[in-house]
């Protein structure tokens, strides 16, 4: 418990440093573009592949479980849509991104810490936390919602392909996709994703920034960052769902 409180205290001290204004906006803009590419663009292919296949599997499983002839086949489209929008895209993709982006952030900053690159920034008179972490947080918070919306679209294409192989006609599937659609679900997913993006980048950066030791410590920080981010994502998924949907 004391250790948890220590982590919390250090996290908020770090975040206070992170949120101070950058030393030079032109350099900050360059860093932000670089981070957008690293944490956002480089995750696009992974999100496309995952979303397509999971979408396909969700629709096949839904069709497989609809054993009663009373259930209309358009329900496959409807169930796939709601599963993807409400849970798979925002939460599962965020968990996967916590593994990819979170470990990358923690190991990058951790390596900079153990090789004294962060000390070098500090000695130059640069606020290292703001310089290194703020662009990462802004990049993830801005970019992840786009990734998630893209994941929803690709997932539905996958679900349609999966539905075809489970004998659900395109017309039925499209009808199910449009049936009782609530745009608020998208808002809910985007709000969740924004929170998750902040958790992934700030928590991973925290563990990287406080790395002590050598290469093994960097690996440990990276693992701790992924585990902690994942647990926090699941916790906040529950809290946000309870607040927004109930």
């Amino acid at each position, binding site marked *: 418990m004391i250790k948890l409180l220590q982590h919390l205290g250090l996290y908020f001290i770090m975040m206070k440093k992170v949120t101070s204004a950058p*030393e*030079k906006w*032109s*350099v900050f803009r360059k860093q932000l573009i670089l981070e957008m590419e690293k944490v956002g663009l480089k995750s696009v292919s992974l999100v496309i592949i995952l979303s397509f296949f999971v979408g396909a599997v969700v629709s096949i499983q839904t069709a497989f479980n609809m054993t009663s002839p009373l259930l209309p086949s358009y329900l496959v489209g409807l169930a796939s849509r709601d599963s993807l929008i409400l849970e798979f895209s925002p939460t599962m993709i965020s968990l996967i991104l916590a593994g990819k982006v979170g470990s990358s952030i923690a190991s990058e900053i951790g*390596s*900079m810490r153990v*090789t*004294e*690159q962060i*000390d*070098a920034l*500090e*000695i*130059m*008179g*640069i*606020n290292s936390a703001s310089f290194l972490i703020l662009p990462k947080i802004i990049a993830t918070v801005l970019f992840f919602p786009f990734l998630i919306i893209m994941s929803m679209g690709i997932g539905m294409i996958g679900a349609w392909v999966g539905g075809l192989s489970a004998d659900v006609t395109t017309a039925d599937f499209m009808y199910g996709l449009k049936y009782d659609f609530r745009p608020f679900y998208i808002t809910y997913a985007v709000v969740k994703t924004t929170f998750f993006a902040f958790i992934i980048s700030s928590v991973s950066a925290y563990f990287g920034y406080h790395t002590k030791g050598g290469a093994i410590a960097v690996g440990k920080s990276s693992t701790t960052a992924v585990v902690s981010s994942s647990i926090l994502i699941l916790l906040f998924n529950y809290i946000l769902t309870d607040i927004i949907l109930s």
Partner: protein
Amino acid sequence: MIEIQNVEKSFEENHVLKNVSFLFEKGKTNLIIGESGSGKTTLIKILIGLHKIDSGTVLFDGVDFNAIKTKQQRILRQEIGMLFQGGALYDYMTVEENIMFPLSMFTDKTEQEKLERVNFCLKRVNLEGKNDLMPSELSGGMTKRVAIARAIVMQPKYLLCDEPNSGLDPKTAIIIDNLIQEITKEYNITTIVNTHDMNSVMEIGENIAFINNGEIWWTGNKDGLLNSDNKELNDFVFASKLFKRLKS
């Protein structure tokens, strides 16, 4: 010049620096020597503000570093060039970007002016034309020279070097030592070198402080070092057979 007065530092139960006072003179290569674990690195980290002192004062040309505000400390730090043990080059930047980085952060120079300054510094450390190399493509000696170029690009008043020769062969180590000394004289700056390499001490030791168990046991220059009758200093300096032979 940099002056430390009655500096004390502990890490929990471990009393690392005990009432340390010393004057690092301008225009000279000032050396902090001592065994591993004697407190050298802690002292240099105190000088650059990475560790806070428990008591005492650190004066940069009369300005008490610990008495000024964080913002002023940041401004003062821009006058300090630091050469880290491993170089600490930003591994996602090229050599040119590494050296240009402080200029981009703290000056309003044009790209052309910055490039001219980078090329001047690269020429000064004999690495002309190596602008586009990545740190991973550099040898140990080249890494140190790029780090020196980055440290001097802002024309600092103080140059601090932590174990500049660690991991280098004797020939390259001498090149780095001489480069540090030449730069010190050329720009008339206060240079502090933290080392336990006796070759370095004999090469560039103009003003030396010997630290043992967190205390300064001896001060002087390289000539005085050879003739000292301080037992702890002699045990450290003449630990190798080569230096024992030199003494006899």
